[in-house]
C-alpha cells in the first residue's frame, strides 16, 4: 500500500520510455486437482508487445492470464518478468482487467478508479480524474457505478488499471459482454492507450477477428499448449473488413476448427446414420465399430457446415467427459 511507486502522480500525457515488461514463460504447468490445464507452456513476450491469445473455451487461456496476474499459483515451471520471478506471483506493475468490470457498487466512479492508490486525497482525486478523462468519463466521476452502461463500466475498469501505470496489462476478455458498436469503440480506446504508454499487453479473447485487429501477434492455445503463433505485420488501425485481417483470422480459425488441433486421444471413426434436426440443437448419430454414438451439435454450426448421411466422420470427446461403468450384463 505505502509503496513509493504508487505515490508518484500519474504522468499526465507523458510517454514512458521502455515502459513494457519482458515476459518469459518456461514449461508452465497448472493443475486443478488431477487435471492439467496448462501442460508445459512456453512463451516469450518482448517489452511493449500486444499479444492476443485465442482458443476454445477451457483451453487454458484464461488460466494463463490469471497465473500471470498472480491470482493462481503455478504448479511447475517459471514465469519471469524482466528476468526475475515476481514475488508470490503478484507484481504491482502488472494489472488485470476482468470480463466483468468488478467495480465496487458502494464507491463512486472516481473512488473506484483510485482503488489501491495511496497518497494525499486531492492528489489521488486529481490522478483519478485525469485517467477518467483519458477514457472519456470525467463528467461521470461522482456517479455510482450502477448508473453506467456495460461499456462505460469497462472504461472505468480500464482507467482503474491504468492509474497504477502498469507495465503489463492483462485483459481477460474485457469486451466479451459488450455490444458490437461499444466493442469497436473500446478496441480503439485500448489500442490508443497502449500505443501511448507502450506497456506490454496480453489480451485473451475468443473473437479471432478482435485478436487480429489488436494483436502484434496471435497465439493459439489448445489443450494447454501453444499450437499456433503468428506475427501480425499489418499497419494500425486495422478494420474488421480488411482482407489481410480476415486472412490471418481465417488461418487461426482453420487451425482451431481442424481435427488434428483437437485432442488426438479418444477419436472414434464412424459413419453418419441419422440426423435429427432441432432448434437450437440437433442430434447426429454415428455408427462406429463398437456401437452408436450420438452427438449433440448446434443447428447453426450444422447449417454452416452441412453433414450428410453416410459421410465418414471422426467423433472425439474430452477424456474427462467419459463415464465408465462396469458392464455386468456381458458374458
Amino acid at each position, binding site marked *: *500500500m505505502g509503496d513509493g511507486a504508487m505515490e508518484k502522480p500519474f504522468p499526465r500525457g507523458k510517454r514512458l520510455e521502455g515502459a513494457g515488461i519482458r515476459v518469459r514463460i518456461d514449461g508452465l504447468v497448472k493443475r486443478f486437482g488431477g487435471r492439467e490445464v496448462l501442460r508445459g507452456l512456453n512463451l516469450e513476450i518482448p517489452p511493449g508487445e500486444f499479444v492476443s491469445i485465442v482458443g476454445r473455451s477451457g483451453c487454458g487461456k484464461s488460466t494463463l492470464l490469471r497465473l500471470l*496476474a498472480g491470482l493462481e499459483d503455478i504448479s511447475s515451471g517459471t514465469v519471469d518478468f524482466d528476468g526475475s520471478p515476481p514475488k508470490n506471483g503478484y507484481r504491482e506493475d502488472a*494489472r488485470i482487467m476482468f470480463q466483468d468490470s468488478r467495480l*465496487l*457498487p458502494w*464507491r463512486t466512479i472516481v473512488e473506484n478508479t483510485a482503488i489501491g492508490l495511496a497518497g494525499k486525497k486531492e492528489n489521488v482525486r486529481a490522478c483519478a480524474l485525469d485517467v477518467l478523462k483519458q477514457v472519456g468519463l470525467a463528467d461521470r466521476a461522482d456517479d455510482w457505478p450502477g*448508473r453506467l452502461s456495460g461499456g462505460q463500466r469497462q472504461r472505468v475498469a480500464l482507467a*482503474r488499471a491504468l492509474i*497504477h501505470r502498469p507495465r503489463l496489462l492483462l485483459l481477460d476478455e474485457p469486451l466479451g459482454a459488450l455490444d458490437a458498436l461499444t466493442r469497436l469503440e473500446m478496441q480503439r480506446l485500448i489500442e490508443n492507450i497502449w500505443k501511448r504508454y507502450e506497456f506490454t499487453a496480453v489480451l485473451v479473447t475468443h473473437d479471432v477477428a478482435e485478436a487480429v485487429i489488436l494483436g502484434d501477434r496471435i497465439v493459439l492455445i489448445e489443450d494447454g499448449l501453444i499450437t499456433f503463433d503468428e506475427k501480425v505485420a499489418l499497419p494500425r488501425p486495422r478494420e474488421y473488413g480488411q482482407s489481410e485481417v480476415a486472412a490471418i483470422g481465417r488461418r487461426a480459425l482453420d487451425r482451431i476448427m481442424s481435427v488434428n488441433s483437437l485432442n488426438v486421444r479418444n477419436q472414434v471413426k464412424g459413419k453418419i446414420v441419422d440426423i435429427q434436426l432441432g432448434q437450437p440443437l440437433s442430434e447426429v448419430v454415428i455408427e462406429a465399430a463398437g456401437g452408436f454414438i450420438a452427438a449433440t451439435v448446434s443447428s447453426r454450426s450444422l447449417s454452416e457446415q452441412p453433414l450428410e448421411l453416410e459421410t465418414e466422420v471422426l467423433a472425439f470427446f474430452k477424456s474427462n467427459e467419459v463415464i465408465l461403468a462396469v458392464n455386468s450384463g456381458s458374458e
Partner: protein
Amino acid sequence: MSIVSVRDLTQRFKENIQPWIVPMAILVFWQASSRLGWLSSRILPEPLAVVKAGINLALSGELFRHIWISSLRASGGFFAGGGLGLLLGLLTGSFRRMEIVLDTSLQMIRNIPPLALIPLAILWFGIDETAKIFLISLGVFFVIYINTFHGIRSVDPALLEMGKSYGLKGWALYREIILPGALSSILVGVRYAFGFMWVILIVAETISAQEGIGYMTMNAREFLQTDVVLLGIILYAILGKLADMLARALERHWLKWNAACETT
C-alpha cells in the same frame, strides 16, 4: 399539460388518503359505539378518553419520565447486545479460526428464546435494570450477530479478488470491500433487532418495574384505568415505528449507492 398535472395531483391525493380511510372509519365507529353505550369503558375506553389521559399524564410530566426510562432501557440493551453481536460477527465472519472456536456455541445458545431466561435473569440480577438490559441485549445480540456473520461471508469473492490484485490488503481491503459489502445485511439485522428489542422490553417491564411504560400500564390495570393501559400500548406502537424509521433512514444514508442502482 395543466389538465394532466391536476389529474396527477388528485391521483397523488387519493393515494395518500386512501390507506387512512379504514383506520379513520374504525376510530369513528369506536368513538360512536362508546358514546352510545354499546361498549363498556371497562373493556375499551373511548378514543377521546385515551387522548385525554395522554394529555393529563403529559402535563404532569409523568408520561415523559416513563418514555425516557423505557427508551434508556431499550437503547442500553440495544447498544450492549448489538455492539457485542457486531464485534463477534465480524470476528467469526472474517477469521475461519474464530468461527470454528465460537460459532457452534453461539448457534446453540441462539436457540434458547431470551424470554425463557427471565427466571434466571431475575435470580442473577434481581428485578433491577440489569436484568432488563441483559434480556434485551441477549435478544438483540443474536439478530445482529447472525446478520453480520452472513453479510461478511456473502461478500462477492470476485470483488475480493479484484481488491487483492489491485494491491488492497489488511484494513484497506476490509474498509473498501468487506465492510461495505456486508453492510446491507448488517442493517437488515439492525431493523429486526429494533423490532425484537421492543418485544423484550414490554415483557421485561410488565414483570417488574418501578418506572417505564410497562410499569405505567401495569399500574393502571390495578386501578382499572383502561384509558392509560391503551395509551401505553399506543406508545409502544409509536416508539416501535420511530425505531423502524430510524433504521430505514440509516439504510437510505449508508446504502445510497443501492438506490442509485434501482432507479436505472
